[in-house]
């Protein structure tokens, strides 16, 4: 099995999808000769031609709207949004067209569009280059949303996303592009895109993550085990819909749930996970689900970004909290207990 970087794995997946289906076309800014600012499409224009790997004018609504037209004509466009923060000009076309056309036309028109979004922070970039906008899309009916955390999934899931007849937002954790991993290119199509994956098994606490924070969560689980705490780590993979059965089964065993993401807390995906799991597992919960997330702020300038981003220590503090072990808010909890 070859070892490759995350970025290479997506490239290989795109190449495979293009080989398999001549209707797959790539669209985006600078994805041709340059191979994209992250080089994810490196070499593809050279090999497949400028008619299948389109450098587009600098206009995201235009890219998304013409992708809709191409889908109408039977194509399967794969759109690259250069950075997370540049998806908003395309928001109207995504929400009102891409998400709704299948419903609007009562199934007559399919929108097999894949929207690739390098997302998340931690790379020291200026404004608009480090955002986590996934919750806008998980709240948008008609879309599917996935995020990948390792080269193998990246390779498999980009193909699954492209093969899906429903539109898929495919969130790529840009700060992990250079992480390497084994990729089985011959592996049969698995259920990766739909199912959450238990990354680390554990019995005390369920820790849910996706995208860039899966590896942080894994590290936290290892650190916690040093303290004798057994953390089960789940990589959601699919963010809409979420495979709640897997999470539910875990929480029924552990009774405790910690969720982590980079996006702002209020109205973030963590809220949906906490609410849904509380609905499904109320009688099994020993503590309210705890969210360890970014703050309710615009993404900060790079010198402060690691205060905003959840890291191993903040996750461990959340684990302590859900276990009612001493943690940074113990004093507050004690106050509240007194008030009761």
């Amino acid at each position, binding site marked *: 099995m070859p070892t490759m970087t995350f970025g290479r794995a997506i490239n290989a997946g795109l190449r495979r999808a293009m080989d398999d289906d001549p209707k797959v076309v790539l669209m985006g800014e600078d994805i041709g000769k340059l191979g994209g600012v992250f080089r994810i499409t490196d070499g593809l224009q050279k090999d497949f031609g400028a008619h299948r790997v389109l450098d587009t004018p600098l206009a995201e609504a235009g890219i998304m709207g013409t992708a809709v037209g191409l889908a109408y004509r039977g194509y399967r466009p794969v759109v690259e949004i250069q950075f997370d923060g540049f998806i908003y000009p395309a928001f109207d076309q995504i929400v*009102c*067209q891409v998400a709704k056309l299948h419903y609007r036309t009562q199934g007559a028109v399919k929108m097999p569009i894949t929207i690739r979004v390098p997302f998340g922070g931690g790379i020291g970039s200026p404004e608009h280059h480090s955002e986590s906008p996934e919750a806008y899309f998980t709240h948008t009916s008609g879309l599917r949303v996935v995020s990948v955390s390792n080269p193998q999934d990246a390779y498999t899931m980009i193909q699954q996303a492209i093969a899906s007849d429903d539109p898929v937002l495919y969130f790529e954790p840009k700060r992990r592009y250079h992480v390497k991993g084994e990729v089985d290119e011959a592996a049969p199509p698995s259920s990766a895109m739909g199912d959450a994956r238990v990354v680390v098994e554990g019995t005390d606490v369920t820790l849910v993550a996706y995208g860039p924070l899966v590896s942080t969560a894994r590290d936290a689980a290892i650190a916690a085990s040093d303290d004798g705490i057994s953390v089960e780590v789940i990589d959601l993979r699919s963010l809409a*819909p979420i495979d709640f059965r897997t999470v539910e089964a875990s929480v029924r065993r552990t009774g405790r749930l910690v969720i982590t993401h980079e996006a702002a807390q209020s109205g973030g995906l963590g809220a949906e996970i906490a609410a849904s799991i509380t609905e499904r597992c109320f009688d099994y919960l020993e503590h309210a689900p705890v969210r360890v997330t970014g703050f309710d702020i615009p993404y900060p300038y790079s010198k402060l970004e690691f205060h905003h981003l959840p890291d191993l220590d903040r996750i461990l503090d959340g684990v302590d909290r859900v276990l009612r072990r001493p943690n940074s808010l113990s004093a507050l909890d004690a106050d509240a207990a007194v008030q009761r």
Partner: protein
Amino acid sequence: MAQDEARPGSGSTSGDHGSGPASGTVHPGAAHEGADELVQLIDPHGVRHADVRYDELVADVDGPALRRLYEDMVVVRRIDAEATALQRQGELALWPPLLGQEAAQIGSGRALRADDFVFSSYRENGVAYCRGVDLTDILRVWRGNASSGWDPYSINMATPQVIIGAQSLHATGYAMGIIHDGADSVAVAYFGDGATSQGDVNEAMVFAASYQAPVIFFCQNNHWAISEPVGLQAHVPIARRAPGFGIPSVRVDGNDVLACLAVTREALARARAGGGPTFIEAVTYRMGPHTTADDPTRYRDPNELEDWAARDPLARLAALLDSLGLLDADYADSVKAKADATAATLREGCLAMPEPAPSDVFRHVYSEPNSWLDRQQDHYERYLASFAQASQEGSR
């Protein structure tokens, strides 16, 4: 702030300002001699005028063909009136009349080939008629019975777009697909004067020019976007917009069905030959309200309506036919009978439309199973069943 639009037939342009062209300077309108002139083949009095450029494009339109165009317009006006009546009678929730825009829609719509593909707004029921739409289908959405009326692939026309201007990009993308397929069909985007202010429409021109896509931007400038006059959207005549993107444009009398046919044929031929996009501004007038929910007396001068009534697209073709001896009483009766029969079919179809089932709300959101939605559907079905049960048990 808003300049008056040039009126068809008046030949005047407005919005020009500044002095003549100077070294390196482009003044709007200054260098556009003749640019704002309307293509007109039949004038408001029904007189056919010769045109060196466009006559040959409609050389095949003989008496019978002119009569067919006339019939189309009469029938479409009748359909529109019937739908308006259905709305007034409470059978439709809303209706956006096309009254006054028949020539623009029939003239362009009849120029198309079956394998061309139309992306329109809500007002192009005349175009849908040309595409061969089942009449009932144009009412489904307005009766609130379905999210769309027809399968776009059955008549090669997308279902109406409500987000102003969004379809211009869809047409452009579709046209990019046509190039890719090596086909010679054409995509046509219909939109209004108001739509030209939207970023989407301008981006569509960027993409269309960049890829030389076989797409026609057919703008019906009906002088109003709900209550807003066209001068608020465009400081100079709309047709001037496209050349700045590298797209040839033409301004046509939108109430002259023959001229609309001619310019659309020209644009189609250019596109089929690999010549890329064309922008057509059809200058016409929305004689009715924006929709049946609108009250235009709040914002527009009744004299304006009168002026435009004098340029009615049907009246002028009737006058031409008459002058050619093609409008005898028998023929006129037969056209009216056809229109009435069509209206009756429309009404029947409307009233016979089946009601949707509650569980239809969940259909077609996704083409694949979706655990979130499937669960919600299951819960809602249990909820509905609980009423049936409750009423069986006689409780609550």
